[in-house]
């Protein structure tokens, strides 16, 4: 497609009408083309206003009580600044009997054990492969590639690649939820070659999820994810669902 062809796709892009191949081509142009970016700003603002072309339909009255009930069923958010309780020591300490000391010692032992138990429970539970992700992030000279949403507007995350390119982990979050008969499927696209690199049965799209990428980073053009039937794409190494996001590795 010529640049002019791509510029003509911007109105459709702003309202989400592009097919995947057109969208990827236009997004590449948008990275560098100031005129394309300016046009997109206009069309995006226009698209926002289209929302107001909807007939008003009063929300049912029971929704308010329903929302309250749903809130009550969710964990409360606790403000970070909780009040500190003041503890004042006794003014006149006195000698203690052996029995009192024994009871106090036992109580202290129980407190220590209880404290240890609570602290171990409170330690953050890492998601699978999150530790490996954190290890790479802590290293020097790593490469990072952002997750670029395509059809999943809220998708976020990044691919981190350890120095040397031998280890890499993809962090993904905020994907659209899927039904029980669907799966998330991850793909590596290099040139004309598309290869499935995993099928994931996550219960929600919320995440974050951490996926080690086994392929050498030099052999990856783009990583992408789609929603497919439970067993994966029926076409084998060819996705059937919309691309949720892309991670462009090869520049």
């Amino acid at each position, binding site marked *: 497609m010529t640049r002019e062809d791509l510029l003509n796709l911007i109105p459709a892009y702003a309202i989400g*009408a592009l097919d995947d191949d057109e969208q990827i081509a236009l997004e590449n142009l948008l990275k560098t083309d100031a005129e394309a970016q300016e046009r997109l700003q206009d069309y995006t603002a226009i698209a926002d206003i289209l929302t*107001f072309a909807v007939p008003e339909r009063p*929300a049912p009255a029971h929704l308010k009580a329903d929302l309250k009930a749903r809130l009550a069923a969710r964990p409360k958010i606790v403000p970070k600044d909780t009040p500190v309780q003041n503890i004042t020591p006794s003014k006149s300490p006195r000698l203690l009997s052996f029995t009192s000391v024994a009871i106090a010692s036992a109580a202290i032992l129980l407190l220590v054990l209880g404290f240890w138990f609570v602290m171990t429970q409170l330690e953050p539970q890492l998601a699978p492969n999150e530790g490996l992700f954190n290890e790479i992030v802590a290293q020097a000279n790593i490469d990072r590639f952002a997750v670029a949403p395509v059809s999943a507007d809220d998708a976020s995350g990044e691919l981190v690649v350890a120095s040397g390119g031998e280890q890499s982990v993809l962090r993904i979050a905020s994907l659209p939820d899927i039904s029980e008969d669907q799966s998330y499927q991850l793909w590596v696209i290099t040139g004309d070659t598309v290869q499935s690199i995993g099928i994931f049965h996550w219960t929600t799209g919320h995440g974050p999820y951490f996926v080690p990428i086994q392929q050498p980073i030099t052999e990856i053009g783009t990583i992408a994810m789609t929603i497919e039937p439970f067993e994966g794409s029926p076409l084998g190494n060819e996705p059937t669902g919309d691309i949720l996001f892309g991670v462009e590795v090869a520049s």
Partner: protein
Amino acid sequence: MSETPINDLLNQIQVGNEDALIQLHEEFSTPVYSVAYRVLGNSQDAEEVTQDVFLKLWDKAYSFDSDKGKFISWILTITRRSAIDRLRKRDRRDPPENSISMDAAPYLWETKLGTEDMTDLQRSLLSVLGELPDTQRDAIYLSYFHGMSHSDISAHLNRPLGTVKSHIRLGMQKLRAIWTQPTTQIDSERRYSS
């Protein structure tokens, strides 16, 4: 409701004040429900999306950036996307009967936006939208409110792909012509704050 109280309510939501969320729900549940219904075409799904949007707001109130636009635009965009996601999961992307052209005279949201919130420019734009040829407006609506791509619309309307692309491009270009026409200083400043 002006933006300042909205920001206050959003701050309250972030520290767990349920009453603040309920207040926003009272104020915005009808626009949210209206957009969800427009996409989904039935009250049951529209109610679910409405509640999901406010629960997302409960979890992610921090993600609203008042520098990037008005709250109502932000929450209605979330609503439309959530409704389209639900439509896709339902695996039935055909729009409800008679829904394509039912907005020939676009509603102006006066009750929620008020005269001070909606610029003449925005009114003009919605007016021009109502005057677009049906073929152009239908194609725009099918994409915007039903998440259909060029190919989907071509198949749904049984029209050539190139024709569908032209309809969307021409319709949107007419709207942009209104959007970019010389206007008053005030409108110019407010153009991107819808």
